[in-house]
């Protein structure tokens, strides 16, 4: 028996491989991204792709499932919003080969734009949902998801969250077992898959029958586990919330739900009879609580004490349930008095000079999701909205329609390369079609940056690093009907400002694209090769301590206090200092300095 320590996401990938999965697709999103990467790197038996977006991913894998193979897609919680359209109807059509969709929630929004509870999709879409608590369960639940999918002719949702997806624990490894379904397509199946009203009404009934059977199945599902200990309190919980509660109240009785939809009503009623008082511990929404209360079962504690926002933890659960009896640990230092350490754009990042330029231009910047969202942080503060992938392009258009010609020269949308392909192309088409005049800047740094460097249709490589077509953004813009298409070198601040200003002022749609500005961490693009000098230093003979170079928020530049004078006699309160280990020589600070005080360094 081989045991290995694995991350939850790696265990899902392993489970998919052991279950005989043949096709996997995903769009990256924290905390789900490692699943597809792991499959691409370790399991050649599975076809693996980074899809253009989550909707495409679900369509790809559902096609594979209809063709009779086991298939899966993975995404973060907000990704399922994008993929909801196919998913809601796949619940009606069912599948042939097993189909699993992993949805990774992010309670406490460690790296997301909202905190939605994906369990609601299961109820809304009439789709069974499993929720593992640790890596072993990630693997086991993945395997059983495919069995449930085939047995009940339905897609299955596997819900994880940050503390499951990104936690490591031991996993027992097993062999791969190929599915015994014979792949193939049969035109006679059309009534099952063509969702026109006459067929939908038939399938609509099948959905209800499926859910009824699944509820029966849930009552005997082997991962819905009753642990009867001290019967004074019985906890109903799932996933990592169960682990937190078990940690602080090991003596209580538990009903741990491995399947969180549909609920095992018979089992819940039975549990309620065995214990005196019921406590429901769940992160985010009162999902179980609403359902269990509707069953007429009395609850001792639920969301009256357990928070309905942010993530839970052992101490939050303990404090909520012990109330005044909870003993707070001693406060030695107030953490709020310490300097924070927010994430920052890397030294040399091409987004830094762009946001500096946009700030100087005084533009209202409709933003998007990616590293460049960090452009909103002080002192740059040059990004003013972030909603979802692609939103900024349409929003800039709407804002300009609302304000009219007065908005010319004042509004711009910025969007990353991966994000533009994910959700920015259709709104740009809309801008052109509806005679808009907004400007869209594609911050093309040649990779999906924030989530850890996943390929996309613009990079020229597949998930398995095979060379492939790379989308040409200018040609794409042209095909959409954009007449004014320009390239910018963001490292040339003056020229960048001129071009953006010109385009923002034009009474027609404009598309601006980064040229030769790859992500600093993308080694294959040799990002620092374009810079003339390896690093720069502050010439203390000239530095007047004006702090202008600090305005770009470069992690390599810091302030050093100390009164003094420049060589030509100007008094100063300090100078700035460039850390040569961090500086990559991008020359952005050189352009910002008005006193030529930043000069090439010598080794």
């Amino acid at each position: 028996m081989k045991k290995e320590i694995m991350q939850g996401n790696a265990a899902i990938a392993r489970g998919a491989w052991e279950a005989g999965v043949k096709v996997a697709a995903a769009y990256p999103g924290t905390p789900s991204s490692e699943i597809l990467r792991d499959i691409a790197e370790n399991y050649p038996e599975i076809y693996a792709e980074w899809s253009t977006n989550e909707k495409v991913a679900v369509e790809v894998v559902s096609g594979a499932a209809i063709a009779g193979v086991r298939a899966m897609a993975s995404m973060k919680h907000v990704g399922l919003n994008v993929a909801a359209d196919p998913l809601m109807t796949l619940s009606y059509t069912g599948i042939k080969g097993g189909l699993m969709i992993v949805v990774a929630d992010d309670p406490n929004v460690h790296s997301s734009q909202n905190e939605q509870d994906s369990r609601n999709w299961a109820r809304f879409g009439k789709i069974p949902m499993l929720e593992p608590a640790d890596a072993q369960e990630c693997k086991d639940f993945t395997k059983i998801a495919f069995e449930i999918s085939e047995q009940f002719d339905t897609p299955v949702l596997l819900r994880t969250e940050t503390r499951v997806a990104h936690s490591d624990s031991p996993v027992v490894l097993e062999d791969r077992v190929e599915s015994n379904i014979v792949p193939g397509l049969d035109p006679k199946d059309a009534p099952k898959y063509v969702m026109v009203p006459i067929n939908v009404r038939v399938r609509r009934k099948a959905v209800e029958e499926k859910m009824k059977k699944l509820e029966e199945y849930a009552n005997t599902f082997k991962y819905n586990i009753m642990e009867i200990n001290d019967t004074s309190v019985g906890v109903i919980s799932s996933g990592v919330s169960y682990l937190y509660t078990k940690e602080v109240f090991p003596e209580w009785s538990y009903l741990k739900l491995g399947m969180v939809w549909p609920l095992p009503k018979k089992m819940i009623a039975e549990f309620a009879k065995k214990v005196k008082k019921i406590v429901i511990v769940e992160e985010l929404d009162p999902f179980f609580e609403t359902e269990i209360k509707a069953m007429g079962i009395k609850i001792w504690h639920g969301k009256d004490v357990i928070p309905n926002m942010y993530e839970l933890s052992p101490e939050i659960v303990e404090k909520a349930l012990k109330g005044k009896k909870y003993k707070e640990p001693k406060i030695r230092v107030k953490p709020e008095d310490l300097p924070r350490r927010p994430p920052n754009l890397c030294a040399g990042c091409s987004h830094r000079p762009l946001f500096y330029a946009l700030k100087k231009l005084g533009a209202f910047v409709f933003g998007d999701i990616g590293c460049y969202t960090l452009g909103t942080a002080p002192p740059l503060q040059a990004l003013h909205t972030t909603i979802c992938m692609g939103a900024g392009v349409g929003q800039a258009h709407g804002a300009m329609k609302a304000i009219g010609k007065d908005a010319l020269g004042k509004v711009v949308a910025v969007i990353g390369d991966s994000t533009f392909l994910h959700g920015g192309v259709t709104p740009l088409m809309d801008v052109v079609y509806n005679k808009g005049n907004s400007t869209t800047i594609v911050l093309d740094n040649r990779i999906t940056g924030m989530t850890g460097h996943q390929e996309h249709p613009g990079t020229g490589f597949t998930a398995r690093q095979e060379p492939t077509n790379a989308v040409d953004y200018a040609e794409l813009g042209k095909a959409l009907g954009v007449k004014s298409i320009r390239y910018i070198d963001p490292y040339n601040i003056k020229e960048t400002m001129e071009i953006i200003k010109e385009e923002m002022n034009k009474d027609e749609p404009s598309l601006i694209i980064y040229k030769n500005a790859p992500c600093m961490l993308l080694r294959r693009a040799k990002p620092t090769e374009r810079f003339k000098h390896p690093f720069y230093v502050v010439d203390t003979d000239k530095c007047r301590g004006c702090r202008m170079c600090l305005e770009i928020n470069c992690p390599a530049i810091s302030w050093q206090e100390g009164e003094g004078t420049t060589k030509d006699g100007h008094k100063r309160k300090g100078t700035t200092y460039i850390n040569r280990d961090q500086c990559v020589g991008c020359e952005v600070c050189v352009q910002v300095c008005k006193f030529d005080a930043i000069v090439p360094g010598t080794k």
Partner: protein
Amino acid sequence: MKNSDKTVNIFLSGVGGQGTILASNILAEVFIKAGYDVKKAEVHGMAQRGGDVTTHFRFGKKVYSPLIKYGDVDFLLSFELLEALRYINWVKPEGKIIINKQKIFPPAVNLGQVKYPEDVEKIFKKYFKDNVWVVDGQGIARSLGNVQAANVVLVGAFSNFFPEINPEQFVEAIKSLLAPKLHDLNVKAFYEGRKAL
């Protein structure tokens, strides 16, 4: 550990890019091979962009929660002074603290808006007396020719707290996690770190 039934809570903290994740991976390999149940939780996402990085690492006979309960940390292993101080309230009164003496200034300090906290070591000693160890991870790693190995120096220092584990088990874990060309440097870093306490 004398009481092997009890779960041991190790909290690692540092700054993105310091190699805290490798350090916690080494610990995971070692304790799982030693027959313990292990759970390890970290927040990724923006780690490479200079933000703070923390890992909750727990081992014992049976570990439930992947997160350590606030106030229940047995060992605080920190790779940066400010990032140690940030979690001082998490440590049990009898907990042990191992800190790398490196300072990495956060943006607000770089901008001259706030001061980097002074006397971090003194603050820890005030509360934890002799249970505080400060290691010059960078200095030791630099003397070995590569400052990047500071994280493994810290692991070496930390290994002293687990006398029941043969240091060779740490070496084996280090080798299993790093490319062969990095083995020599990191094995040396481990042993130099082990001597540093």
